[in-house]
């Protein structure tokens, strides 16, 4: 597993230069709450036909900063982005709320302060 650090502002450039649809399989977007308002966002890729080759881009952020959407590059990232919006209460451009949660259920359940 290769871990590469990036920032939210350069994310689109980094992944745009890296991602080739016929070479890399996009796994998912992941978020990890680090506590005290900090959050670690991860974008994970694996290579077709090669053993144990996983590349993980990560960026540190907080709850308020909007996260850039990767849909233009990778159409299948919509689901992961909608999930992050629901589970952490972040804002992602173009992603709607309400994939899993209802109006009266716990808002952003995976945040550390819940």
């Amino acid at each position, binding site marked *: 597993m290769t871990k590469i650090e990036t920032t939210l502002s350069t994310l689109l450039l980094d992944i745009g230069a890296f991602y080739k649809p016929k070479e890399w399989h996009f796994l998912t977007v992941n978020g990890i709450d680090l506590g005290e308002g900090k959050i670690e966002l991860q974008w994970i890729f694996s290579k077709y036909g090669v053993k144990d080759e996983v590349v993980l881009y990560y960026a540190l952020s907080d709850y308020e900063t909007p996260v850039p959407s990767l849909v233009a590059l990778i159409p299948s990232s919509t689901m992961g982005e909608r999930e992050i919006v629901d589970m952490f209460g972040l804002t992602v451009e173009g992603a709607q709320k309400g994939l899993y949660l*209802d109006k009266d*259920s716990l808002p952003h359940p995976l945040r550390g302060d819940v």
Partner: protein
Amino acid sequence: MKFFTTFRKKSPWILHYNAGSCNGCDIEILAALGPKFDLERFGVINTGNPKQSDIFLVTGPVTYRSRERLVELYTQIPEPKVVVAVGSCTSTGGVFRGMYNTEDGIDRYIPVDVYVAGCASSPQLIIDGLVTALEILETKSKAIEKPFKLFGAIETIGNKLSRLNMARKVDNDEN
């Protein structure tokens, strides 16, 4: 109407709804309908239509999004009806007891007649539960049983409880 009731008891049709289970009990219900256990010996057919069903098989602890559908399906089944809770998580919440998006068993919402144990419940237990449900169905009257938690108002039309507005219609502005 008594004429039809006798026939309904001979061939109870079932309605199956998944209110958030892990699919384990659902595939066991399918296996029970399959050739090895063959529920159709009891005259059972799995229908997709609540208005033709007599036995309501529910699996899963009630999740927040499925509760309105559950109550609505329940109110649409004509009386007398029997509710069978299949599996641990349907009866008491099981391993999902206390999770933030579930409701600890379907008897928080609708009256349950038979609780089937097991995680996942086996076809043998489902058949046992259905046989118990058939016995209960014979003793049941046509009085309307209300679900415990309602989303709409209770109405009476001419001294009779109306089932029409018991479950609120599903909102279409969710997204």
